[in-house]
């Protein structure tokens, strides 16, 4: 069966342009893309999109799901529904669960369960070291065979440089992608916010932005030493960017990612100790935020992700220092990212390059493109429709979003995974 999506505003991140046209889906793939409305294609079914935007589905690197261990915070089912409603067609799952996903048996089990329960694709990542403890490397080869698309200890930094350099060396021999959230662990210890005037006034333990640069410089030196494929994720400071630019210019196999919250919020949003704004690394200054957005525009930062981290009410309803870190983001990723478009800081192809195309390419996936032959993982959205976010209407089990009661613009209308509509009005 073929489906023709007509009267669409196509956003092609690969070509870097938008145009009006139509797209035909056959057998779960895009089989034709048509510019303009001139020659109608034969099809079994036609859906008129009414001039709305059609883009490749979002590939969200770094989504925490509560399974195993914290299913009261998020399950595969709820995360999958949230993803579908947010236009995320591929969830790349973080291994910082309880226990950590650090062996092929767990990984295989988890990814089978996930793909049964979630209406979108779920790809697993594995820990880099056993138990994310930074001492022994995981079975990288077996884990790749079992489907791991990346290796990361997430927010735990491998402090022992000898361990990390061996992990990188071994990973390189298998072509595995190592993902890190670089921070200097010593400076970071015990901090809740970024040091500066705001932290001083609030009397909260703070960390200098230099910690991120130090962590990144160390990792990049080891990448230079080992030649590993490396993705620096969750970068948040202007101080880290020159090191990143140098590494890229030197031809290292390095990419970088930023979390949507660091691109759209700053430290002052914490205001009166609002714990929904407590994330890791902490929100930064407005100067950092602007530098980060600029880096996405220039391509220095390749990937935008939600860094979806569900937390229940209890773990957030504590004094700021003691409260848990993290924010849910699957459903707010697109409307938050569209703030950057409405602010005329990034155009739509650039946004979807960072949301869909680049993460697909970095993970070696065929998704993220609007060309014939690519999987029909698509989202249809209206970038302008305004709404006020009500966190209790989110599909995620946990409702810890910093965008609660905020005005946002842009809504997902339909989401397709392999040509099947998983979100939107019934046909």
């Amino acid at each position, binding site marked *: 069966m073929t489906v023709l999506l007509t009267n669409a505003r196509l956003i092609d991140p690969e070509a870097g342009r938008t145009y009006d046209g139509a797209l035909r889906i056959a057998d779960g793939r895009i089989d034709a893309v048509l510019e303009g409305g001139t020659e109608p294609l034969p099809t079994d079914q036609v859906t008129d999109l009414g001039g709305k935007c059609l883009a490749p589905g979002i590939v969200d690197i770094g989504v925490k799901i509560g399974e195993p261990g914290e299913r009261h915070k998020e399950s595969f089912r709820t995360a999958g529904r949230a993803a579908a409603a947010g236009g995320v067609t591929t969830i790349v799952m973080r291994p910082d669960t309880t226990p950590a996903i650090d062996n092929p048996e767990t990984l295989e089990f988890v990814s089978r369960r996930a793909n049964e329960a979630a209406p979108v694709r779920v790809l697993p990542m594995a820990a880099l070291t056993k138990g994310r403890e930074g001492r022994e490397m995981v079975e990288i080869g077996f884990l790749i065979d079992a489907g791991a698309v990346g290796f990361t200890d997430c927010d735990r930094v491998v402090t022992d440089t000898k361990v990390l350099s061996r992990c990188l060396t071994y990973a390189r021999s298998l072509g595995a992608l190592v993902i890190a959230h670089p921070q200097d662990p010593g400076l970071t210890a015990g901090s809740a916010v970024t040091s500066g005037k705001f*932290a001083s006034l*609030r009397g*909260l333990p703070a960390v200098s932005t230099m910690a991120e640069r130090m962590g990144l410089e160390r990792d990049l030196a080891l990448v230079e030493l080992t030649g590993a494929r490396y993705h620096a994720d969750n970068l948040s400071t202007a101080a880290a960017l020159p090191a990143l630019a140098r590494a890229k210019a030197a031809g290292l196999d390095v990419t970088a990612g930023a979390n949507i919250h660091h691109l759209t919020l700053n430290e002052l949003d914490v205001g009166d100790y609002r714990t929904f704004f407590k994330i890791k690394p902490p929100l930064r200054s407005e100067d950092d935020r602007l530098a980060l957005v600029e880096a996405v525009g220039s391509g220095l930062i390749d990937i935008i992700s939600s860094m979806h981290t569900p937390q229940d009410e209890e773990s957030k309803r504590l004094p700021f220092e003691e409260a848990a870190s993290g924010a849910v983001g699957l459903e707010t990723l697109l409307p938050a990212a569209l703030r950057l478009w409405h602010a005329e800081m990034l155009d739509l192809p650039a946004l979807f390059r960072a949301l869909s195309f680049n993460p697909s390419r970095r993970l070696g996936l065929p998704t993220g493109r609007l060309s014939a032959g690519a999987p029909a993982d698509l989202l249809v959205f209206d970038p302008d429709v305004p709404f006020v976010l009500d966190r209790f209407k989110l599909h995620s089990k946990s409702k810890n979003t910093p965008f609660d009661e905020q005005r946002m613009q842009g809504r997902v209308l339909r989401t397709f995974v392999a040509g099947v509509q998983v979100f939107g009005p019934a046909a």
Partner: protein
Amino acid sequence: MFPHRHLLGIEGLKRPDIEAILDLAEIYATRNRTPEKHGTALAGLTQINMFFEASTRTQASFEIAGKRLGADVMNMSVAHSSVKKGETLIDTAMTLNAMHPDLLVVRHPSSGACNLLAQKVNCAVLNAGDGRHEHPTQALLDALTIRRAKGRLHRLNVAICGDIAHSRVARSNILLLGTMENRIRLIGPPTLMPAQVDQLGVEVYGDMREGLDGVDVVMMLRLQRERMDGGFIPSEREYYHRYGLDSEKLAYAKPDAIVMHPGPMNRGVEIDGTLADDINRSVIQEQVEMGVAVRMAAMELLARNLRQETGQR
């Protein structure tokens, strides 16, 4: 007249708010020296002192202030009770809230804890010190002490010395003295200065003699050893040598400069014992005295709002 439901910090208080508290406190300060100390401003109200951190003088001061104004006062040293059984701050507060207190006096080791509580309970919350954030009644009693000693609370040179980074007293005082248009100098080793503190409208000095030059008020802070992770200063004796207040360093201040300390003092660490007891320079005992008066005033102003809210005058 005092448009606030809680007293969570000096931040948010405007000049007239501060003056309202100090003016009323002045009346109580005079009355507290007579045998007729008792008033009825808080009669019928219930005041709970909830201290998640050990305290002698602040807790006693709030208790006496409440009792002098006729409130039913209850003390809870939470540091030793249910928190050890795993109950969260919110649960403890909600339990107490169900007993309908009118005034909740809270001290907690985490910055922002009182702000969090204030969102959840129906009564007026008074911050008796939260982490490194604020200690508003301390700043108010310091202000009253300065005003009585100097005859004014503006255009004074005030030096705050010592462990600024870990001090809620310093933060509240910076905000209050700044609002009242004084010149504030912070003196201390750089490891005990908060980041970008110079953006708070203060002058920062690393040298005691330079910083004390010509000041009207010298405010010493406790070196909060129990709060330190370790390694902020090389040793106590080096700290005393460089930053401890003695008569030699005090000689750089104005001849009539007063010496203050929020207590409890570490004699021989941040202040010379003889100097602390010198009644010509030290107003440390007066600070304690003003503490009761200021807390009476603050609670009365909040209670007036409470009574207005419920319609019973």
